[in-house]
């Protein structure tokens, strides 16, 4: 049985259904998978999570979580999923310990019973267990929210943008925690606007404007990149960018950290760039493997074309 199935889901907002948040979305998630929903703000990630956690109704289509229908069996689903919304949603005037106790109690369980599951995360905030949740730092709030979402030992965990606005170090730590949870057999759906986090998932769905651009393992997505791609660098980067935009071998070119990524038209080869008549100083060209961000950019532009 699949942990999650989504079948031709459509969700619109507004009187005239003017805003299409999810446009015929279908995919499924295997039990125990760490599944990433990758896309920018406004792509439809939160609507999707709210539908699957039975907090929102779709216009059409169907979905199941743990074999239960999100509409008919919403009560069963609520008992077995954990949900960490993008916005901090704990009680700021309760202490760390009180919040955790509260969530354990409403799910008819206790902290002691499921302590093993949260131990690694909870020990980091336990020194502050008497502190009010509203007075915690951002990173500690996030850890407490994760503990509260886990305390009833859910079979499927939904994390909506847990790393947004979080610095690179804390983001790495958070993904370490997810790996630990995955080892305990929990299915995890996690959304993020950071393309570089895709590689940490078993499979990912790339989403933009309510449509799925691709669903696959990160390596299969990057392997599917059809054109040759190069990293290029020269002394004057902005000048290089503008010249490359005009070159006849260029399919697309854009800044990418220290380099520009140059996507060649099909049939063009790195040698064509080497023989390019130009006045660039210290031109460096290196064939590379595309990463998820390259694929996302290509898929985005394809879907607009």
């Amino acid at each position: 049985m699949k942990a999650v199935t989504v079948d031709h889901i459509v969700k619109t907002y507004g009187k005239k259904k003017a805003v299409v948040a999810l446009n015929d979305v279908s995919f499924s998630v295997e039990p125990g998978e760490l599944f990433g929903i990758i896309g920018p703000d406004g792509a439809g990630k939160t609507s999707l999570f709210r539908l699957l956690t039975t907090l929102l109704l779709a216009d059409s289509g169907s979905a199941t979580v743990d074999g239960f229908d999100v509409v008919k069996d919403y009560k069963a689903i609520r008992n077995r999923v954990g949900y960490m919304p993008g916005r901090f949603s704990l009680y700021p005037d309760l202490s760390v310990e009180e919040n955790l106790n509260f969530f354990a109690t409403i799910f008819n369980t206790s902290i002691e019973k499921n302590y093993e599951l949260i131990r690694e995360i909870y020990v980091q905030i336990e020194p502050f267990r008497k502190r009010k949740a509203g007075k915690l730092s951002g990173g500690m709030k996030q850890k407490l929210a994760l503990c509260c979402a886990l305390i009833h030992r859910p079979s499927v965990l939904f994390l909506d943008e847990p790393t947004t606005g979080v610095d690179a170090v804390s983001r790495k730590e958070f993904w370490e925690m997810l790996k630990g949870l995955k080892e305990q057999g929990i299915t995890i759906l996690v959304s993020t606007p950071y393309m570089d986090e895709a590689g940490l998932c078993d499979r990912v769905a790339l989403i933009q404007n309510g449509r799925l651009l691709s669903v696959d393992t990160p390596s299969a997505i990057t392997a599917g990149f059809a054109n040759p791609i190069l990293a290029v660098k020269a002394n004057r980067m902005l000048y290089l960018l503008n010249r490359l935009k005009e070159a006849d071998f260029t399919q697309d070119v854009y800044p990418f950290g220290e380099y520009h990524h140059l996507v060649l038209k099909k049939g063009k080869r790195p040698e064509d760039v080497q023989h390019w008549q130009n006045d660039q100083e210290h031109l460096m060209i290196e064939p590379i493997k595309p990463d998820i961000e390259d694929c996302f950019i290509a898929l985005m532009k394809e879907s607009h074309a």
Partner: protein
Amino acid sequence: MPEKVITADKLTKRFGDFTAVDQISFEVEKGEIFGFLGANGAGKTTAMRMLCGLSMPTSGAATVAGFDVYRDNEKIKRNIGYMSQKFSLYDDLTVKENMQFYGGIYGKSDAFIKNKTAYILDELHLEKEAHVLVRSLPLGWKQKLAFSVAVFHEPGIVFLDEPTGGVDPVTRREFWNMIYQASDSGITVFVTTHYMDEAEYCNRVSIMVDGRIEALDTPGALKQQHEARSMDEVFLKLARKAKRGEG
């Protein structure tokens, strides 16, 4: 000698016995794109608030656009632009009204506002959306408009606080193109970001750890000094040294 748009000399801010910003010293030149990096809680926001004239330093000295942060903080506010991901435009005003509002706040003439509004609408291809509420614009457009509004009054320096958070990869690059153009026209850009690839686009980058500036140089030099292949690695090496938690 190049003109210094920002100077900070042992700039410090304490809250009670907590030193949020601990004697930071640096200078930013005219037209420079200066990346201001640091982990959550390192003191970036507090430092930025002092430089924007919104928070009085405890000690040390600083000037922004030639004005002293203690004495001339009102003048600083008039001579800088500011944009953050969290707050920038009024959702319930139209695109045009937002520009008129900001132009008015900064005391620009009607003629200036009219010309500049037309110029920006053309530049961003937003002529058709001039009378649309900002609320209904896609996020990427909003961020680009927000940047244009932040430099509407032609300030010498603009502060950008995580301007590209959550923005799609194509728009993120269009946004940086606007930053390059602003810098080309002589506007100094002071920017914070959590995207380490964007740190590479800056002329110089500073990295704050526990209230202090631990590193400050060009991305290339920082990578060399820390024997790192990317700015991401440099950042991780430095930020992992942090002893204090998030503030």
